[in-house]
Structure formats: structure tokens, C-alpha cells
């Protein structure tokens, strides 16, 4: 596996994607050391809408300027990364857990379990995700947790189908039969013999799903159905800068650029992973 990782990073897309994502995660983790308080407002009249690289009357330096309440855009961007990346990662994790469980059980056990789980997956797949998101987000008090749950529970179907196909194919392989012949019980065969060999497409789907989840979180928060201000997320940061795009473009541009860069990085990494790891693509 270590050799695989080395070969992967020689792919320039993978190296770039991993480096950018790594920096973003690092910035999010180290936020308190990199920036001041994202919510603190000073003298609003004196410090609002300062352009990037400005120093306010109190002597504080603002790398990316300030917003309409005089809050530091850099600080809000970095703390927003915590929320946006955290929500994205946790939502994808939830999707992976549900998808792997559903796909593995449906793939390994024949009969009604399989029929029911596949039917349910197809049903969930047929629901338009964005409409469902809007509906669910408007039914409950919007919060980061709700966004995670909603995104997680609407994103597992593709993973379930991948795992299902992979498990079915692996279940007929001789080493699985050898485990059956040895007297290994079904659940242990699934966990120890089949799933470790079925996770490659899941890693790819998770990387691509991460980009999607971050974008959707931003979209929901932009619409006011996701993470609520004053907690910063890239989505509501963009929304808050929307009114002043002409006079103070940096307020919306900073989170917008960050969002694009991170999503592109995750997609590049996912594509590179797919080209490297997916045997069906290698021919």
C-alpha cells in the first residue's frame, strides 16, 4: 500500500490536489494560531469595509480586509474552513458508512434482504437531492449538524451501488470460497475477506463526494438553510458579501476563491485516484 501512495503522488494532479487539501485542512485545524477572533467587532464605523492589506485605526492588520461589521475577512475565511471542510468530511463519512453497510449486506446475502436494500437504494436515488435538501433544511432549525445529516443521508446511494457490485464480484472469488471451506462465518468473511478488497472504488467516490458535499453545504448556507451566521461558513460568507460585490468585492471573493480552489483540488485528487486505482479504467 505504501508503494501505491508513492506512485499516486507522482501523478501531478494527485500531488497538487493533496497539497491544496492538506493546506486547507491544516489552516482549518490551526485556525486559532493563524487568525484573530472571527466574530469580534471593533469600532464598526472606523473599521468596516477596509480593503485587503489595510491596517485599522487600532493598529490591527487585515490581510483580506474587513466586512460590513469590521470583522476580519481572513479570520472568518479560516474559521469558515473549519465549518465547511468539517461539514463536508463528516457528511462524506456518514455517506460512506451507510453506503458500505447497505452495499455490503445487499451484495453478500441473497434473497429478500438484497431485493429490499437494492429497491430502497433505487428509491433514494430517484429522489432529487437538492429539492430534498431544501425541503429537509426548511423543516428543521438550520444548523451544521442538520446539514451533515442531510448531506450524509442523501449521498450514500452511489457508494452503496459500487460496494454492492464489488462485493458480488468478490463473493465468487476463490479466496472467499476458501474461507467458506475453512469454516469462517459469513459476517467475518464479509469484514475480513471481502470488504478490504472492495474499498478502492469507495475511496475514489469519497474524494469526489467531498467536493460535492462542500459545494452543497456552501449552496445551502448561501441560501440561509445551512450554517447560520454569525458562525462563518464559506457559503454564508459569500452570501454576506453579495450586497457589496461592487464596493467591497473582497468580502465575497475570498471565500469564493477558497471554495473553488478546494473543490477543484478534491476533484483532481479523486480523478487521479480513479485513474490509478480503478482497474476498469486501466483496461
Amino acid at each position: 500500500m505504501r508503494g501505491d501512495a508513492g506512485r499516486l503522488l507522482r501523478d501531478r494532479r494527485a500531488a497538487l490536489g493533496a497539497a491544496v487539501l492538506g493546506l486547507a485542512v491544516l489552516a482549518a485545524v490551526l485556525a486559532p494560531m493563524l487568525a484573530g477572533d472571527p466574530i469580534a467587532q471593533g469600532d464598526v464605523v472606523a473599521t468596516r469595509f477596509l480593503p485587503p492589506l489595510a491596517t485599522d485605526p487600532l493598529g490591527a492588520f487585515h490581510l483580506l480586509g474587513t466586512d460590513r461589521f469590521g470583522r476580519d475577512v481572513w479570520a472568518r475565511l479560516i474559521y469558515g474552513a473549519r465549518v465547511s471542510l468539517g461539514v463536508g468530511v463528516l457528511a462524506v463519512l456518514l455517506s460512506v458508512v451507510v453506503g458500505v453497510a447497505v452495499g455490503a449486506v445487499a451484495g453478500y446475502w441473497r434473497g429478500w434482504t438484497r431485493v429490499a436494500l437494492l429497491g430502497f437504494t433505487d428509491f433514494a436515488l430517484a429522489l432529487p437531492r437538492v429539492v430534498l435538501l431544501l425541503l429537509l433544511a426548511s423543516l428543521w432549525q438550520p444548523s451544521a449538524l442538520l446539514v451533515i445529516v442531510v448531506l450524509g443521508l442523501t449521498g450514500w446511494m452511489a457508494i452503496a451501488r459500487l460496494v454492492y457490485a464489488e462485493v458480488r464480484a468478490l463473493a465468487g472469488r476463490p479466496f472467499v470460497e476458501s474461507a467458506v471451506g475453512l469454516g469462517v462465518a459469513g459476517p467475518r468473511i464479509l469484514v475480513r475477506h471481502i470488504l478490504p478488497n472492495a474499498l478502492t472504488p469507495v475511496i475514489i467516490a469519497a474524494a469526489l463526494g467531498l467536493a460535492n458535499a462542500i459545494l452543497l453545504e456552501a449552496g445551502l448556507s448561501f441560501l440561509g438553510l445551512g450554517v447560520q451566521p454569525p458562525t462563518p461558513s464559506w457559503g454564508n460568507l459569500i452570501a454576506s458579501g453579495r450586497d457589496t460585490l461592487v464596493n467591497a468585492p473582497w468580502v465575497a471573493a475570498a471565500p469564493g476563491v477558497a471554495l473553488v480552489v478546494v473543490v477543484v483540488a478534491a476533484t483532481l485528487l479523486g480523478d487521479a485516484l480513479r485513474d490509478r486505482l480503478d482497474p476498469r479504467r486501466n483496461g
Partner: protein
Amino acid sequence: MTAPLLRVQDLVKHYTASGLFGARGQPVRAVDGVSFEVGRGETLGLVGESGCGKSSVGRTILRLQEPTAGRAEFEGVDVFALDRRELRRLRRRMQIIFQDPYSSLNPRMTVGAAVAEGIEIHRLARGAEVGRRVQRLLEEVGLDPGYGRRYPHEFSGGQRQRIGIARALAVEPSFIVCDEPVSALDVSVQAQVLNLLGDLQRDRGLSYLFIAHDLAVVRQIAHRVAVMYLGRIVETGPTEALLAAPRHPYTVALLSAVPEPDPGRRRSRIVLGGDLPSPSNPPSGCPFHTRCFHPARNERCRTEVPMLRPVGATLAACHYAETTPLPGASAA
């Protein structure tokens, strides 16, 4: 002889292509009434060409596939009547070695973990004793005990087959189905693995059902041979007698395909015409009559199914077994 270790009676395995609305088409009659016995410490060679059902026999006995009909008694236990838990216990006593050493080991499991798995799930040892047993097993099959930490892809085909053997031996079975264990290996490695299987049989008193398509391999290891054609045993007997004086025309044809080690002795090569008939629509009467070269073959072969009956030193299912031309008889 005392009671055999394994007694199989009228084993039938049909495969039915299943569609959305139940069964469709003719079932494939992979195994069509097979009976045999394997004694303690004995090797029965099961020989036939691809698709004759020989692998299905081995897998059905181990319940890796469910039989359609028939009976198998192992150490006095009716194998086909066991529930899931009893079956797992039985699998300690009956093991299988697979044909393809590349796909029969989990690529994500170390060799040590693969060998230890049987010991752990059957609770044959615990703690550090598991590791000691794994090392002993690796040594017993001729591998370096330090290989336990490595992964299967680091090994050659012959080494992997040894790992597969160690994995099967770990649960201390008395009977092993060897499903073409050497046909994927180089000839030189074949001999080493066959010798290993022979040594293990001597040391541990193992019984084998040795499945092969090659009589030359079976000759080296089997005490008795059963020849299968289209899901039936067409001839069976002690290895030496059967190879010296085969009575079924199909056995004669198989034997003629074995390379003759003595260049002075020439033997005519019998090449069977046509392909193996479809097992979903087997010929009437004698299943072999469509490809038979027996000079006496006639209408009776097309209508009447021949039963296994004693002819000379073997049992043969041919109406005219007494007059079957021997391979040497028509030497060029």
C-alpha cells in the same frame, strides 16, 4: 478394509439457469449419479476433461455447493444433513486446496494471518501458541517460517500453493479435496508439490480426493483412480491396473494422451473427434457413444445406458469392455 472415511452415493448436481420467473431451460447435469469411497490414508484420483463435473463433485462433498440429490457420509456423519453450525465443525475435518494459487489467497491478508485464520476460528490454540503453530506449519510445507509477515503477491505459484496447503492443514483435517492443485504450476514445481502432498499423507495419515485432468499427475499420487465423463464415473480401479489395462474406451483415449517416458515404446495417439457433448442435453444411451472409437460400438450403445461392472481388474461402464482395444495394441 474397515469402514471408509468417505462414502459418496448417487451424488447428483444439476445447475439450473434461473430467470426472474423461476427455472428456465434444461438443467446442466454436471454430476449425474456418482458413487465412490475413499479410505483412510488413501488417495482417490478423479480424472476427466474440463466440464465433466469433477470439480463439482469435490465442491459438493464440502458443501461449497448444495447437492441436487445423493448422499455423502464422512466419518459416519451424513454431510448433506448438517445445519450451518455442524457444517462449520465438519470443515475442520475436510479441507480443500484450490487450482489457482493466485486467486485462492486473499491479497490483503498476510501469509501468517491466512494460515492462522483456521486455528483462530476453530479455537485450536490461543495467544502466542497460534504464532508458533503457524511457523511450524510453514516449515512443514517447506517455507521459511519468517514468511508469515509477507503478502501473497510476493510469492511464486509453487510457494503460494504451499501456503494454501498450510492454510488447509492448520485445522488438522483428515481429508482434503485437492482440486487440480498442480495444473497451474510448471512441471518441475508440480513434482515438488506432489511430493509434499505425498509426505504429508504419510506423516499425518491424510486422505485425498485428487482431482486432475492429467492421468500422468494422478499416476504419481493416487492409489485408486475414477475416470469421469459427462457427470458419470465410466471406469474405476486401482491405479496400476487401470493404467495397465484400461477397459473403457474413454480411459484408453485419455491414457494415449499421456507422454510416454520410454522413447523406444511407441504408442498410437487416439484423438477423440468432436467436443464434449453439452451436459444440459447429454446423448442417449452411453454418454460416450458420440465420440467412441470402439470397433464393436452399435445400436445398443445409443439406447442402453451401460452400468459400472467388473471387467478384469477394474469396474467399467461399457457394454463391450471385454473387447476394448488396448492402447499398445494398435502401435504404429
